[in-house]
């Protein structure tokens, strides 16, 4: 639709009142509410988080001990059936949410920490620092993620979920840092930065206190869309046999259920569906946030 349609209701020199943070949040919330899909996404995310948090309370059975005969199809007592050891699938899926959601969030947080610092430095200082950092980022980015993860994990004697998280975060930072960098590159010329500098603010202070708040929306969208990616990646790694068998993530459930696939379809179907729905929820939310916050992720 042509912008010619919108009559300018502001003269060019009129002062633009920047609404308070609370008002802005309210506007974003209203925009978000308009999209039914975003609401659905938010709902799913909320649901999964609640399940993850409350699973010990709301799960019908215990995840460790068998509560029925092995490999029973879905029934009234066991809505998702039982696995090969007789444990209730619904319970297992609920407990699985804890690990999987934890993985997603933890990895994203570490990724943000790394990606933000590197991106900030590259974008703000530019020059040779930028060149080097981005060259390294390019390389890490191009290398097939799974290949690197397998390489990295196969080196460790111990298989632990936290190691997986660390490895994933360390290998995924390039994308976030690229985005952060381009934001810093464009924003460092902003007038308010000049003003801050002229008042004697240090570089660090400018980067964190002045520019960072302005890129929050981009980061939020990117983070929301990265969470499902990590959840799926962890599940894939685990399924291939490189995961932590002690954690009971959905990936572990799928790995364990694979041999029994043809006889007991429910053992792999429900954990996988849980993955799909969680991922879908975050993606819907991410899409909605991107539209509501009016974010254009620049490359």
């Amino acid at each position, binding site marked *: 639709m042509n912008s010619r349609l919108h009559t300018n209701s502001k003269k060019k020199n009129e002062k633009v009142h920047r609404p308070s943070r609370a008002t802005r949040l309210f506007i974003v919330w209203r925009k978000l509410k308009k999209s039914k899909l975003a609401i659905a996404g938010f709902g799913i995310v909320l649901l999964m988080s609640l399940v993850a948090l409350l699973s010990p309370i709301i799960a019908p059975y215990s995840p460790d001990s068998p509560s029925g005969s092995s490999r029973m199809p879905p029934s009234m007592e066991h809505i998702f059936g039982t696995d090969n050891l007789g444990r209730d699938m619904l319970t297992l899926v609920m407990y699985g949410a804890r690990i999987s959601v934890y993985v997603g969030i933890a990895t994203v947080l570490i990724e943000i920490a790394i990606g933000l610092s590197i991106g900030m430095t590259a974008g703000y200082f530019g020059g040779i620092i930028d060149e080097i950092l981005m060259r390294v980022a390019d390389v890490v980015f191009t290398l097939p993620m799974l290949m690197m993860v397998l390489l990295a994990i196969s080196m460790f004697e111990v298989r632990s979920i936290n190691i997986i998280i660390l490895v994933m975060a360390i290998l995924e930072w390039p994308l976030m840092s690229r985005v952060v960098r381009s934001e810093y590159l464009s924003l460092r010329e902003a007038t308010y930065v000049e003003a801050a500098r002229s008042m004697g603010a240090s570089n660090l202070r400018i980067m964190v206190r002045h520019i960072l708040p302005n890129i929050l929306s981009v980061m939020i969208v990117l983070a929301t869309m990265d969470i499902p990616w990590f959840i799926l990646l962890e599940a894939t790694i685990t399924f291939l046999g490189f995961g932590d068998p002690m954690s009971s993530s959905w990936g572990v459930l*799928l790995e364990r259920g694979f041999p029994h696939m043809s006889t007991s379809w429910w053992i792999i179907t429900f954990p996988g569906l849980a993955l*799909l729905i969680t991922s879908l929820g975050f993606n819907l939310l991410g899409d909605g946030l991107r539209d509501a916050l009016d974010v254009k992720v620049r490359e």
Partner: protein
Amino acid sequence: MTMKDYLIRRLIVIIPTFFLITVIIFTLIHLAPGDPTTMMGGARPLREDVKEKIRIEYGLNQPIPVQYLIWLNKLLHGDLGYSYISGSSVIDMISARISLTIELQLLAELLSIAIAVVLGVIAAVKHHSIYDASCSVGALIGYSTPDFWLALMLILVFAVWLGWFPTSRPETVGLTFTTPFHALFDHLKHMFLPTLTLVTVWTAYLFRMVRSAMLEVLTQDYITTARSKGLKERVVIYKHALRNALLPVVTYVGYSIGLLFTGAVVVEEIFALPGLGQLMVERSEARDYPTLMGLSIVIAIMVLIASLCADIAYAAVDPRIRYD
């Protein structure tokens, strides 16, 4: 700048990138603790004199940077190493399997691009229609689906329950074929589900890209100009708009080559296809470091070549790039 100059510039950039990759892979492998020779044998430890030979050949008693240079030197001479665990040279193992991986990747990728472009353009043109909405939702679901789970479900439904397709391997084992056509048909039957798995997820990714790129392009001024010249709408869309919309798509494909390989690994593993991806998994489990190093380099090279091709395609379509 002509295409040739652009090509040369890109190649020049790739060389330091390649070396950086070798450094990263080398470092990664050598972070593993312990004496490499102990691990090279796997379950059956090597004889001491063999170990000593290896130590000298790879310079394991020398400082790390020297080890790196020794390895790099061998690499550049085409010696990718030897796997003691499996008893064959790395090059042999790779060349036996590479064609299957390439076949799977190319097939899946080309199909995905074709489908995504067609669907994406139509969705953008019919913005806000039922068609657009349902395709978008479908893409979102496809994009959120774990590829290995999709593979499992497809096997369950189409291979186990319906019996239409085989569950694994690139061809039926132990069968002799009367005609090459027969063999091809059998092969395609085996490749159908693996390819379908990959195509579903990738088409979803690409569709979203194409659609949003087209939507953006269709609002541009030059589209109005094209219409004001009296061109048919079809020409405006497929000649003027699409060409511009494909630019970000080509960039994206170039960037995500690595992602595509990830999907292939999983699919090869589940469908027991003996390709590079499956080799990767197998050798990682066995901690067969020599093989892993060589294999990683080969994969990295494949990715670099693919992204170079994407760069060339981009420069061919967008004249502005050549003048940077």
